[in-house]
């Protein structure tokens, strides 16, 4: 019955006629930034490579929707972050389902990415493991602000949340990292973020 609340599919709504002569220039200007951010969110080099490509394909297809309210970099990073987080959500779901097939399900502790030697080199292991255990929105908040040094306003815009929510995420993420890395609880993150 088409009028059922569960009827699918929905009608096609979005035309895709994006256009830009300078898209290649924009690509060359921002591809490294996008790649770096995605890599630190998904914690896997080859996946980051694929998702970077996905990001630019999406950006090209939706370029006509870019309104200029934010900078192009912010708009592009938002697509990149959404693409990376969507990938992680799929991993989390798949892992949970896989756990049902094993005799002893793991306790919930974030997702597990495919191991990548770059991220699991000896000197990177502790931080990678701690980052891996964070929920994707918390990890993303840290990557954008602390590691990439973005302005909190831009980072909040990229994550599509308020600055309060961003600060809350950073706070939660740092709390978890301190515990995981066994770091002294003394903290001055608020000042650092505000002064970033």
């Amino acid at each position, binding site marked *: 019955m088409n009028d059922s609340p569960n009827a699918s599919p929905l009608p096609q709504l979005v035309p895709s006629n994006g256009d830009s002569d300078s898209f290649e220039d924009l690509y060359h200007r921002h591809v490294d930034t996008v790649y770096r951010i995605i890599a630190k969110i998904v914690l896997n*080099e080859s996946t980051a490579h694929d998702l970077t490509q996905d990001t630019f394909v999406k950006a090209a297809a939706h370029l006509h929707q870019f309104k200029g309210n934010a900078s192009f970099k912010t708009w592009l990073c938002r697509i990149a972050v959404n693409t990376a987080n969507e990938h992680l959500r799929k991993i989390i779901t798949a892992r949970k389902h896989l756990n049902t097939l094993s005799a002893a399900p793991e306790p919930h502790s974030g997702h597990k990415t495919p191991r990548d030697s770059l991220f699991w080199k000896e000197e990177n292991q502790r931080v990678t493991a701690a980052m891996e255990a964070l929920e994707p929105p918390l990890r993303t908040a840290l990557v954008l602000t602390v590691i990439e040094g973005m302005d909190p306003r831009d980072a909040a815009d990229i994550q599509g949340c308020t600055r309060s929510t961003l600060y*809350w995420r950073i706070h939660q993420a740092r709390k978890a990292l301190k515990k995981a890395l066994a770091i002294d609880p003394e903290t*001055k993150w608020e000042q650092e973020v505000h002064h970033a």
Partner: protein
Amino acid sequence: MHKPDPVNRELKAWGNRINRDLPPVDIQPPIAQAPRLDPSPRRSGFRVPALAPFGFAGLALAVVLLWVWSVRRPDSPPPPSVADTPSTENGFTVQKAFFQEIARLFQGHSVWISGDPAAMLLDVEPTPISSQKPELVLRMEIERQSEEGTWQTVWQRDVLAHENHWTQAPAAISGHETVSVWIHSLAANIWLVESHFLLPGIQDLEARKQITLTGSGAPADSEPIALGGGLRLVQRLMPLHTAEWGDNV
């Protein structure tokens, strides 16, 4: 000048090492007039394992329906069900006891619900994420405006969700759509609902809406999100356990 925070220091050093060792990205810039995106997941590697637990979901559905049926006594009114309630805020409230029973039965798990009176479908996330019952039920509705100007529900999903946990509707529930949700508390009775929809024709919709509950246990709606084509998305949040309400911040 204050000493650099040790967490920041570790993170920055880690980030610098990763940046230094990342190989150069080697992809071709896409053409701006790209073809329409395929909303289905490109990487199929996870699809087979993702489909694996549907047997479990089906079993869970059968158990729940049998249980609901078996506890109905002849002299008691039938329990509220998704089937016989209209898609209105009032109907949502009527179903609260049903949602609470599902939450009790599947304590610790997130549960997705779809369907109509004839065929209700539940899917229980197989891995428990908490020892607690789900705290909230979120209803997502896509409504279409009729010629008379009234809004009619054309698509609806419910999820019994825990705070701060991403949950994604399984294919058995979502069909052609991909829907995932994250809910977290901003302050007492103020919740942020983040949902991500990959719906046929409405590509990659990210919805982040703040919903303020009254504290009475009644549901509250987000601002509708216009989807174009005479459609809109409404998200409706209802607490399942009013006794502890406000203690979750």
